[in-house]
């Protein structure tokens, strides 16, 4: 039997037998080389309670070349693209070793959620948000976990409160912005989507708000 196929089959079987790690690997179609992995968001992080799905493609020369992975579930994290789910992680590139398995790689992704590396970002805007205001970042990540990964949402009194349990998705919370800020510029006659777009791009959050003059924002809005 083809060594690659044998190895992948064994890895899938091992994962099924392992009840403790909570890592799941499923087939997407008939091919054993295109899979879907999933794992729970780690405890004590904004991703807690969510379930994160990962698209797995096994290349021809696996396991001697790294497996290709990207998030299917949208994740708010400095090292994961908020748009495409692409992942910035060394073991998926040059630090790959053939002894790593699908399971161990998924566990590495899980631990990436615990320990973001904002200095080596995949998503620069999210990374800026993280470094500017950690608490605001956490709120946004919790909200994303709630709406995209089936998380429980903000707990206790923490968070902006206004977003709690709101059914239609709150674009302001998704962008990680303050409602008051958005409304302030909306009042000048700009469209909401445009305001959100510009404020997110300018990282209009936390201490940055004081640094950005209203004129500067309006200038951007007029572009």
């Amino acid at each position, binding site marked *: 039997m083809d060594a690659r196929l*044998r190895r992948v089959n064994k890895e899938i079987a091992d994962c099924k037998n392992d009840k403790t790690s909570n890592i799941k690997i499923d087939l997407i179609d008939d091919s054993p080389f295109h899979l879907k992995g999933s794992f729970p968001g780690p405890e004590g992080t904004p991703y807690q309670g969510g379930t994160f799905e990962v698209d797995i493609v096994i290349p021809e020369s696996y396991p001697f070349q790294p497996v290709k992975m990207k998030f299917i579930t949208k994740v708010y994290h400095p090292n994961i693209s908020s748009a495409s789910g692409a992942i910035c992680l060394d073991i998926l590139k040059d630090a790959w070793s*053939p*002894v790593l398995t699908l399971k161990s790689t998924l566990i590495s992704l899980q631990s990436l959620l615990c320990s973001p590396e904002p200095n080596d970002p995949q998503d620069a805007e999210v990374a800026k948000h993280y470094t500017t205001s950690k608490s605001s970042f956490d709120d946004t990540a919790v909200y994303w976990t709630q709406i995209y990964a089936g998380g429980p949402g903000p707990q206790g009194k923490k968070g902006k409160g206004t977003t709690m349990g709101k059914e239609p998705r709150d674009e302001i919370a998704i962008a990680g912005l303050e409602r008051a800020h958005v409304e302030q510029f909306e009042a000048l006659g700009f469209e909401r989507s445009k305001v959100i777009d510009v404020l997110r791009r300018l990282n209009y959050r936390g201490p940055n708000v004081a640094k950005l003059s209203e004129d500067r924002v309006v200038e951007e809005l007029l572009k």
Partner: protein
Amino acid sequence: MSSDYEISDDDENYYDYDEDMIDGTQDEEEEDGDMYMDTYGDDFKVAPKNKRKPYEIEYESLSQAAVEKLMQEDVEHICGIFGVDGSTAALLLRHMSWNKERLIEKYMDNPSKVLVDAGVTVKEPSSPSAPVRSHSSSNSNSNANNGRRPTRSTSKLIGLASGSKSPKIPTVSPPALRPSKPTRPTPFVCPICFDDSPDLKPLSLDCEHSFCSGCWTAYVSSKINDEAEHCIRCMAEGCALVTPDPFIRALLLVEPTEPVGEPSLQKENVATWARFQELLVRHFVASNPNLKYCPYPSCTNTVSCPGAASKASLATVVPIVSCGRRGFGITEEMSQSQPVGMGLAAKEHKFCFGCPIESDHRPVVCNVAKMWLKKCRDDSETANWIKSNTKECPQCQSTIEKNGGCNHMTCKKCKHDFCWVCMGPWAEHGTAWYSCNRFDEKGSVEARDAQSRSRASLERYLHYYNRWANHEQSAKLSVELYTKTEKKMEDMQITSALTWIEVQFMKKAVEEVEKCRTTLKWTYAMAYYLARGNEKELFEDNQRDLEKAVEDLSELLEQPIEAENIPTLRQKVTDKTVYVQKRNDIVLEDTAMGFLEGRWKWNVAVEGFDEPEKVEF
């Protein structure tokens, strides 16, 4: 036979060539070949016996084997000093990018650290037994022992079953996947392919991370073929040990005693091993500024040219070299045993040692050639369009296209009102609305002057560019000319008493034309940047003479051939070829001397030259 014609004596090369040629027809074939090689080689090959022309640089062409020999010398040198075996020395040298001095210095300072960094030995855990490393303790007993541990001699394919190894300092924590060592009898399961058949051959480096030989081979092949990586680390996660050459060799090349595997697979492995050797040579060549790898596809030769190794030298020499091979993808034997016949299409592997331009850019130096190519890429098409469709605003010099409407223009950018016809300010037109009969207004004269200056610079550029492009085009068409000429040569043999070897003058002429067109092409790049003055005028005189000679010869070559004309044609072509060759030499020599003497002044700042005194075109 045309023994009655004469060739001017001052070109010895050509004279010899022709005489020999006639003699050659009466002698054996072999001598023809030899003679051929000689006359053709002498332009470029740097055999010490040949006199080098001032515009040629001294260089040496090295085959892959010759470079491997150089590497081997370095390796042996290090072996002798450090008392390590060859593959260890090779790994150390590669780790230090073949910088022997730095390696020796670092190694003397702290051998074990260098060995660990180079991936030769495993890192020792900081156990109490290990001495704290410091400069003072680097010569202490234990450290020296570690440094000299003959790691490589033991590392040839150690199987797990190959008996117990001498007690060893524990390695980096092995991954959990590994079967624990004490339970040696348990059957080996390769942690990569999960195969557990009893005939599996487990292999490991000194770190004792064992994997089956099949996985090792697949891994090494993937690294070499897919990633072009010569520094191949152990497969275990985070293990920094590098596989030494004998290990890779044993994986890829099956020993004659062992059962031979699938023939196709075996062939692939042999190719992988060859590729690995090539990667090592490439790394060595890239690390050494005196060497450059031939950029032609699938050519594995290297050129050594110490005269052009430094950046500063590129201001005075144009290091055009040739790796000695011809054609594309032909094997060494073919290109060397068949100098005759294939010559027309099989082009020499000529390239510049100093810059990435993969052709002859003499006489102009690398930096100027680079500037010119960049300008051509950026400007040419745009410049042509701008020239024919736009004018500049007299006030802010914005480029304006008039796409309709009246002659009263208002610049979108600076709001300046002006007249499209005379370029003067609109205000001066007073009541002469929409018609311009004014010419001598001060404002409009000034505006037109500025306009014409800007136009002039464009015109000037296009003058040089068009001539450059023209020669480039002609040189490209030379392939066609080659085939045509070959046909003519055949015809000549049929219609006249001339033998094959006697019609070679045609081929020689075509080759010369192409060579000179390349020179001419680059003289236009050079002239564009040359500052105005006597030197430039002399340069352009030489350029003109060469151009005239080349065009005359080209015309001769295009002429139809009639049987009765052949002797005169041969005479004419031969004379012209000699003349063209001389003119080409003059241009190249004079320019090369000019660089050496620092005679050329530029109208722009060029890297490696003095700033121009004042910009004058």
